[in-house]
């Protein structure tokens, strides 16, 4: 059974937290906003589809607000 839609409250908290930092791992976001990592992952998946957040791959996966961090060329 696939995961259902993300919790709007978690999505809002993720956006708020990412507004305060350059980039973060989803685990760190989860700890900071008091949610589970899977809920954050689910929220981030939707936020990337909405073009508000993007993934950064720097040896592991970071997330940041869309366009906030310049990807290394």
């Amino acid at each position, binding site marked *: 059974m696939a*995961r259902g839609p993300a919790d709007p409250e978690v999505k809002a908290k993720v956006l708020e937290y990412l507004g305060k930092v350059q980039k973060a791992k989803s685990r760190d976001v989860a700890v900071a906003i008091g949610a589970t*990592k899977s809920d954050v*992952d689910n929220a981030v998946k939707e936020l990337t589809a909405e073009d508000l957040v993007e993934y950064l*791959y720097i040896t*592991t996966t970071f997330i940041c607000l869309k366009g906030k961090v310049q990807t290394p060329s």
Partner: protein
Amino acid sequence: MTEKKTPLLDELEKGKWPSFVTEIKRAAVKSEAAGELLQVLERSYNERRGHWKHGGIVGVRGYGGGVIGRYVDEPQTYPNVAEFHTIRLLQPSGWFYNTKALRTICDIWEKHGSGLTNMHGSTGDIILLGCKTEHIQPIFDEFSEAGFDLGGSGSCLRTPNCCVGPGRCEHACYDTLEACYNITNEFMDELHRPMWPYKSKIKFSGCANDCTSSIARSDCSVIGTWRDTLRIDQDAVKEYVAKKFDIQEMVCDKCPTRCLTFNASTQELSVVGEDCTRCMHCINMMPKAIRAGKEKGATILIGGKSTIVQSAFMSWVIVPFMKMETEDDFEPFKDLMRRIWEWWDENGKSRERIGETIYRLGMTKFLQGIDVPPVPQMVFRPRANPYVFWNQDDLDRSGTALDGSKL
């Protein structure tokens, strides 16, 4: 290019078996990178140390894995292999290709890379060895256009792999090819986006012969089995006897649970189904007389891995039997995998495989975390290997304490 001597590598060309040195030398006729690769390797053999640096930030847009950075530590000496990155491509289930597909792979790779391939890597991917950073995106774009996708690398789901299954093997208890294809497509996000504590592998074997070595090499093994009893064709048994095949010694005496009995006077073979562990030994020895049961599916095992934080682990049973016949049957497996990964993601330390997390925290917590009830098949031997302990809740419900007294 001036040909340089490689006496140590030349030793590896001797013998009747294929030699990777011979193949790299053939590639070196067209590729300077392949020639320099031989020089680096010969030097490593002389000095007994490697000259490769692993990692770095290389990749393609939108993907977190699939490309592994490789750099030589003396780029000025070996300029053609200064950047020698590896690309992993998702293989087709069972490694079935037509010649057109193989030609497409090789043509794109010779155009942009060293021309060297490894068909296939230990996870099963098509491995393309050696390209420069500037070629990575064009290579991906062309492979993508041709219908291929990148495999897994880093802390993500690695490319799932399966045995040849019903494509060529009568022992397959489920369609490993379809299961692998379907489940790979389901977990594309997990495959291309490394965000777990470490890597996670799934391997699908059609029977307990385990041709993918899933029990030792994958975090999740899906091994074909059957729920009912072996089917024995007594006429075929008699044919084995007529050919002087020693059924007692070769089959019954080697059955791990001694569940088979051969009656020499009637020349009949019988089985105690409850004792059979579905090990496949008798079927392998007498394939014309013994077949798997009719009710087929798969056993799901967890935790296999090579030595990293802990020593090497074999995976162990968490679901003794799961139907794997139709697409709908895959859903419970997908749901189980999501729960397993979620638990591991929450509880695992960095670079800790799931088997190691279970070892550290205990099977009981794991089973509670993924909401799977303990069953006898999880235990190696009754009362000898108590992975699963009673909870206080269970004891309260039963009304009996551990020492046998009434609560």
